[in-house]
């Protein structure tokens, strides 16, 4: 019986590579939970949104699960659940129905990553340079 190499079970897991294959993009927001109060005046805009615009929004984003929950006595919030196991919560208190939609859209547009400064590094790359790295041992001199 030949001695087979040991395979550790932990090494058999796969990691999601950044970028992935072309065409493999999936909306990062998997679930949106809207919590509101039935009587509270701060939830008035949220209630109007749920009655008017929420259904169309849910139809437009079929890959995201929309959940409506009651949260009696509390201010309304919307909670987004993302594929990287993070959540984002936005308060909807005292917002009108027209103001609730941009907040929900903000959750749908996000990837769930923590907000960091995006000012200084426009390109985040995991690919090695196509032209390689210069080496003094493989170059001729230059006359100045």
């Amino acid at each position, binding site marked *: 019986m030949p001695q087979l190499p040991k395979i550790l079970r932990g090494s058999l897991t796969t990691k999601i590579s950044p970028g992935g294959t072309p065409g493999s*993009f999936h909306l990062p927001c998997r679930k949106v939970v809207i919590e509101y109060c039935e009587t509270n005046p701060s939830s008035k805009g949220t209630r109007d949104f749920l009655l008017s615009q929420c259904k169309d929004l849910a139809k437009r984003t079929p890959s995201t699960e929309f959940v409506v929950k009651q949260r009696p006595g509390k201010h309304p919030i919307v909670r987004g659940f993302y594929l990287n196991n993070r959540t984002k919560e936005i308060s909807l208190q005292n917002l009108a129905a027209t103001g609730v939609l941009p907040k929900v859209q903000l959750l749908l547009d*996000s*990837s769930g990553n923590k907000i960091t400064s995006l000012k200084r590094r426009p*390109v*985040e790359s995991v690919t090695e340079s*196509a*032209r390689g790295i210069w*080496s003094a041992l493989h*170059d001729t*001199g230059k006359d100045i």
Partner: protein
Amino acid sequence: MAASSALRSLFSSLSLGSSSSLKGKARKFDCSFGTPPAQQLRWLGTTRSQPRATASTAEANSLSASTSVTPQSAYVPTASLSSGPLPREPVQDTSEALRLLRTQPNHYVIASIAGRTYVLAPRDLLTVPKLRDVKVGDVIELDRIHEVGSRDYTLRAQNSLNTRRQKSALASSWAAQLAPSGLAHVGSVLGPQAVKVRCVVAEHTKGNMERILKKKRRKGYRKTITHKQPYTRLRVESIELGK
């Protein structure tokens, strides 16, 4: 996974900058950096072995699809670390240039989006100011691509009507020789027949909260402005070379 969320629409052109105003990295070249045809040597060769007595720098030796160049220097790199033999003269035909590029595995492009120029490779995540007319999941085809290259070959856009004459006083100076070969004319783009770069809109997000304090002393004027800059992040999916 709904197909609609992944590929909602395909924009064939996303021209967000005017052709005459490329800001950022692609500055307008000075007259002294212009390249009349007989001046500069453009070799198709490796970046490892540079011809000695020419004005081409450690940057890409480029192919010219539109102008012909006579080789000047006596030094011709004969050996290369690349897969194929090096042509003796710059390649004239774009399809021949693309054939050579296709022989190599990894490519990069230099493209402009929203007025800024970037060096992009597949699987890069690019952050640009928020693009208002795209949704998350949309696939975008870039239309301002100035250069596509691989390890040993480069195809650069050039407008043959826009060649500038180098000032004779600076023609043979060491500064002119060190200057970039100046073959890319600001604003010139490779067409979709040459190369296609597809990006997917990964997210619309905002940056950190910035607090800007304004004050005029002795006037009782003080205020704090809070600001979050909106961004769009694009994932470069593929670089497809044409025929």
